[in-house]
């Protein structure tokens, strides 16, 4: 089992994802340079947060054309596990690997704070170790996390149970009140129809030790590890 963390020149959460997997969870992980088309036989790819190529145009708009993304697309289409966090989520939307697009936060400001998200689906490789309805306290840090898509896409997302994380309050009682950025239907994270590609705006890699204020992001990486272990057993 090996994780790959893609490094765009403006990635700034690459080290954090690397630390969460390599140091906290003690699993093999390596960096993959954005100009490389070789995914180094990784079993799961993480597109980390940051500002890929500066993102002065539109978040992730240039990153989708990078050499590494060609390989990530191929990898995803062949069933490989890909998780996009924050800027990584934006890139996956731009690349068409996930539906929808990001708008500027409804308050028109960058927001960094702990939010609460509810796990809506557990039959994905990113949530299988969580309980359905489990509430996770995880920080966000973004200007453009206002997820949006057209009505037809929304209907499909609901029907195919692709909405995997929704913003909510700490007790889960009021999703709208817990929504920090105006995302449609309080969507914090989605997966593709095949369920092997997912993106979320909150940063689970920043919620991996209680000293940091929460370790509730670990369940996402643990899910991925379990899925990889399961897949390895199935092929063995």
């Amino acid at each position: 089992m090996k994780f790959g963390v893609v490094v765009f020149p403006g990635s700034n959460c690459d080290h954090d994802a690397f630390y969460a997997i390599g140091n906290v969870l003690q699993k093999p992980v390596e960096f993959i340079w954005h100009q490389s088309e070789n995914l180094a036989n990784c079993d799961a790819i993480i597109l980390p947060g940051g500002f890929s190529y500066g993102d002065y145009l539109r978040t992730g708009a240039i990153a989708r054309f990078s050499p590494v993304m060609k390989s990530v697309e191929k990898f995803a289409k062949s069933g490989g596990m890909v998780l996009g966090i924050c800027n990584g989520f934006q890139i996956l939307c731009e690349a068409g690997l996930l539906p929808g697009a990001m708008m500027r936060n409804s308050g028109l400001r960058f927001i960094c704070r702990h939010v609460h998200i509810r796990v809506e689906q557990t039959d994905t490789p990113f949530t299988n170790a969580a309980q359905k309805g489990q509430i996770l306290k995880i920080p966000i840090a973004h200007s453009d996390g206002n997820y949006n898509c057209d009505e037809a896409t929304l209907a499909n997302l609901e029907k195919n149970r692709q909405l995997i994380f929704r913003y909510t309050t700490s007790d889960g009682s009021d999703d709208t009140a817990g929504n920090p950025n105006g995302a449609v239907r309080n969507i914090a994270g989605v997966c593709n129809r095949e369920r092997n590609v997912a993106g979320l705006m909150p940063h689970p890699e920043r919620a991996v030790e209680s000293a940091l204020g929460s370790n509730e992001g670990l369940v996402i990486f643990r899910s991925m590890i379990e899925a990889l272990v399961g897949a390895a057993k199935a092929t063995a």
Partner: protein
Amino acid sequence: MIAAEHGVTREEYARIQQILGRDPNITELGIFSVMWSEHCSYKSSKVHLKRLPTRGKLVVQGPGENAGVVDIGDGLVAAFKIESHNHPSYVEPFQGATTGVGGILRDIFTMGARPMAVLNSLRFGEITPGKNTTEEDAAKNRRVLDGVVRGIGSYGNCFGVPTVGGEVGFEPCYSQNPLVNALALGIAKKEEIFLAKAKGIGNPVIYVGAKTGRDGIHGASLLASAEFTEESKQKRPNVQVGDPFMEKLLLEACLEAMQTGAVVAIQDMGAAGLTCSTMEMASRGGTGIEIDLAKVPQRETGMTPYEIMLSESQERMLLVAEKGREHEVLAVFKKWGLDAVVVGDVTEGGIARINNNGRVAAEIPAHPLAEEGPVYRRPIAAPAPHVESEKDWFAFAPEGTSLTANFVKLLASPAIASKRWITEQYDTSVRTNTLAGPGASDAAVVRIKDPKTGVVKRALALSTDGNGRWCQLNPRVGAMHAVAEAARNVAASGARPIAATNCLNFGSPEKPEVMWQFSEAIDGLAEACNALGTPITGGNVSFYNETLGKSIYPTPVIGVLGILDDASRVLKIAFRSEGDVIVVLDGFGVGATLGSAAGWVSPAPTWRLAREFSSSEYSKTIAGILAGEPPAIDLAAEKRLQDCLIALAAEGALQSAHDISDGGLAVTLAESCFASVGAGLTPPALGAIVRLDDAAPVESILFGERGARAVVSGSPTKLARVLEIARQYSVEAREVGQVIREGSFRIKYKGSPVIDSTVDTLRDAWAHSLERTLAAK
């Protein structure tokens, strides 16, 4: 005369002629004018700065390099420095603030250290109309604040460094001259620190990073080294434009290039750009330097040597590589998609020669230019003593008055209110080291992961502080308070203060009374830094903070760095458990009343208390009075309290600690209640019941701001131990109340309630005040 337009005096011009043995050409005049500007040369402050303590056991690098460096154990060092970007931030708030952050980050990674944290110390004019502030002024101040906050956020967030703390203050004197001071901290291995000394004759000089444009020409000399007038808006083109993505590339590329072992020296191009970097590198190395401007990557066509040398385009570096290994360095920059060009080499003989297409554009002896510039002993004159009497001072309310309404008003005042609306616009958690972000602890605390293994042992704590109001009333005592409070904040997080950096914001040095303030402040800083064991390792001086002849309050801002030997022992301000005992620790020792300092007749005469209280936040907010004197300071008492807090933290004896500062004891208690919501507890917040008994007037006890005190809480089972440790340090520990579950906030004085409210009511006033004011722009 053209020299005067450059801000060069007649005497300075004669000096230039003497150094060169001839008249300078226009490019040379430009170079001298920026190098000898107040901003770059410290010509008015040098003679005073010498009085600051700069040495210590842990100091690896004191003032004079890009940043100060201190030993933090296990083969690691911390590089840190604070710098001002005041004038650009008024002319163009967003870009002024971004480039302020960019500049200080470059100073850190130029030393080979990866930036770990940024703090900001900000001062604005009042953001609500009132005495001395019109609605128009208030609206403008809100716009400036908004631009500065967005600028700081946009740069740090993209660059990927957490902005973990700092402070924000408001006074009418900053309305035409806000202060934007940015502090950055980085970590490096001790043997991998880089200095800016050109070495090795024949070694190539490499220009890296962004292309040079016409932006920021004369930023240092004309914008930073002159006061503001009506025409200052015309200086907008002198403000630089920041590109955090470029800086991020530069960071990664520089650190990677340093790892090749082929980099000999490196210097960032900040103030005075290519001029400062070439001249200072040669001067420090005792060498000469020769560069060809035709090779400098340029963003615009037809730039003259004068423009290229004086441009302050951002995100550029100059480095010296080992001869024959330059390709290794160039390859790293190519990988990161950055321009990197050999523009010249290190030469013998000490002459800096600037060529342009085969013609000599400037030829100057580097050392005399960089080190033998003018030094002024400016005239000093104390202002006439302000004669005050009791009628100028705060009049204490009669005993028995309910103070709840005043307390709510104080909590909602911009100075005291929660700064969450601001700090949430900053990424505070990137790099996953933030153990205490804004407002969680008295200091910002970041842990240190071992660069190789990722294992965490220690943490670093940082706090910036400065009280312009107190310095206006008494610059020496005010400056001492700034050091004491920053160090106390660090100690209240559990860390041991080890070093300091300073940003000295003052008016025009050409005014004798401003120089008096400066000189007094330096003496205060020196005394406090000596007493508290925090040598000054760097910083900057910002003069000419005045508009239309009116100076700001003298505002020395101090950043203190501390080490926490066990990262798991961070002390935070939040009350944690119902039933915990609340204790006031007082470094003045047994016998001091809460309202006054020890050594006074107890009870202190009311007029004395009133004089001191008139400089408090409460006096300003409730009575509109700013007068009197800052609270008396006793550095030995500060030291006792700090040592006591560090010992209590190391033993894990406390649940919370919060120093008593702006707004006094009552605000401190309330903030510890408010913070309990965010501390992982489910709302509602914890409350407090406090009983006080003292001879002094109740307002001076609840809202007085004298130092050397902290509010701590601990479980009843550990109380005896807390009291014992306090006794060992000769600190008085006074048990004043309990943490309660039901969310009331009640303070009784001599048995009758003086503040009686719910935590929710108080919290609402405190938490949303800034947001309500600023969102209503």
